[in-house]
């Protein structure tokens, strides 16, 4: 038989142990002083999509060929694409369309990553930039092609493992295409 109040005292002892423990144990204090302190970003972390480009020129190097699959598959329909009439050679030298307009309304986007999964050209990837607050919804949260385009090096930096795998696959395809083109010329 316990004395009355025994349960409460036992609980208070537990609280005291946690309070003292939070000064010494990392397990008991998981918070950090953001924004001075920051936790490292995880490899898989995702926020909003961006467009990858290769080389120096962002417009020429854009991998997107305006096939509009992501626009069709996007569940909240936050992507708008208008096809350009001009064609440009892609990474294997084949002539492809390019987007005249590529807008993502990130105030609608729900960061589901489906556009990334369905893209057959590895042109759209997930960014992990999250400090995006702005005062104007249309000026700052409706991203156009220029704001969305980011170099492949940036992608390699934020998702190193995933980017290495994508680059490897694209290089193999490129080598195959070149071998084919070389064989065709002979």
């Amino acid at each position: 038989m316990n004395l009355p109040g025994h349960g409460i005292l036992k609980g208070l002892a537990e609280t005291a142990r946690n309070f003292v423990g939070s000064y010494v144990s990392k397990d008991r204090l998981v918070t950090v002083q953001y924004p001075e302190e920051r936790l490292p970003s995880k490899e898989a972390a995702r926020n909003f999509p961006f467009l990858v480009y290769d080389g120096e020129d962002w417009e020429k190097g854009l991998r997107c060929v305006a096939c509009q699959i992501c626009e069709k598959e996007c569940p909240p329909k936050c992507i708008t694409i208008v096809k350009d009439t001009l064609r440009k050679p892609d990474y294997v030298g084949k002539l492809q369309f390019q987007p005249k307009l590529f807008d993502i309304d990130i105030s609608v986007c729900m960061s589901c990553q489906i556009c990334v999964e369905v893209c057959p050209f590895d042109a759209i990837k997930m960014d992990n930039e999250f400090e995006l607050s702005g005062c104007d919804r249309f000026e700052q949260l409706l991203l156009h092609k220029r704001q969305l385009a980011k170099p492949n090096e940036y992608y390699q930096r934020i998702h190193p493992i995933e980017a290495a795998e994508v680059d490897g696959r694209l290089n193999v395809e490129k080598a195959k295409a070149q071998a084919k083109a070389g064989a065709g010329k002979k």
Partner: protein
Amino acid sequence: MSTREFQVIPRVDVDGTAVDGEQLEISMGPQHPSTHGVFRMDLKLDGERVARLKPVFGYLHRNHEKIGESTTYLGSMPYTDRLDYFCSLTNNWAYALAVEKLAGLQAPERAEYIRVITAELTRLQNHASLAGFLLQDMGASGTPLMYAFREREKILDLFESLTGARMMCNYMRFGGCRCDLPAGWILEARGVVERFPRFLDEFQALLDGNEILMSRTQGVGVLPAALAVNAGITGPMLRASGVNYDLRKVDRYGIYDRFSFKVPIGDHGDVYDRYMVRVLEMRESLKILDQALRDIPDGPILDPKAKLRGFRPKPGEAYGRIESPKGELGFYLISDGSPNPYRYRVRPPSFINLTLLEDLCLGHQVADVVVILGSVDIVLGEVDR
């Protein structure tokens, strides 16, 4: 001075009956902090006792089922995250299970293990935060909830490194999972699972036997087993009433037949039992996690027949259900062979568990209503859909 010098103006209630001047009608919610979201209760009080209670919901209605019928099968997957936003991975699993039945897909063994591991981690963090919220509702302001959220944080970190998001995971795919476990994830998960019992011990030392907790919860909101079965109550709430019904044992969906674990059963069906069943369930989940993290095989994580684009299951219908942390979560789908489902219906556990709220609360005090509602474990994203 006599107490009845003024005349009571006769009022007429919504249903036409005259309101007794002695009774007080209050509208609790939708912004009340104890209602776990935007939920309202129309209470009629006789003194401090509840004479009538009408749950009013729909403030968070988002057309989930209609959206499901107008987007592709894959497009509904991220929306299921937003049903019960505490347990996005179990929602994903239930939906994936329904579509797999429809399309005849089979997840590979490794994917099944990953599903069990993520679902049990989800159960841990759901029950831990539920226990915290319940005590918060009871007036234990902050402390238990902070401890529960501290542990939940560690599990959410695991989810983030696996799926890329802490809450809106969108991880399961029809016939498997989206991506494989990152290197070192199993070790990390083992670390979390090994340290979790220490938290549970502390949590129980903090609360079990606490006189205030006992007097606030024991004998409050009793749900008889027969009523629970008739009303279609599922999950920990049903088991707290003493009915041994757990879909992990009954259906043995996925690979749950491979793990040895017990199903905790309550005896009295009161708030205390509902709290205790959840605490004990966490211990059983840890057992499953131990076994699953030990046995997980290597191999593919996606059925080779699975298609991401142009997915059109043949005409038919399917119902996929799992034991989500809150009860039986089911998805009913009818396919007409097009890329969108013809009918998309969710059987949300917390919505159906909420239907008995009046029966639980009648005769109790207003302060107990808050505790009883907390013990039902609702998430309004799922109730209103």
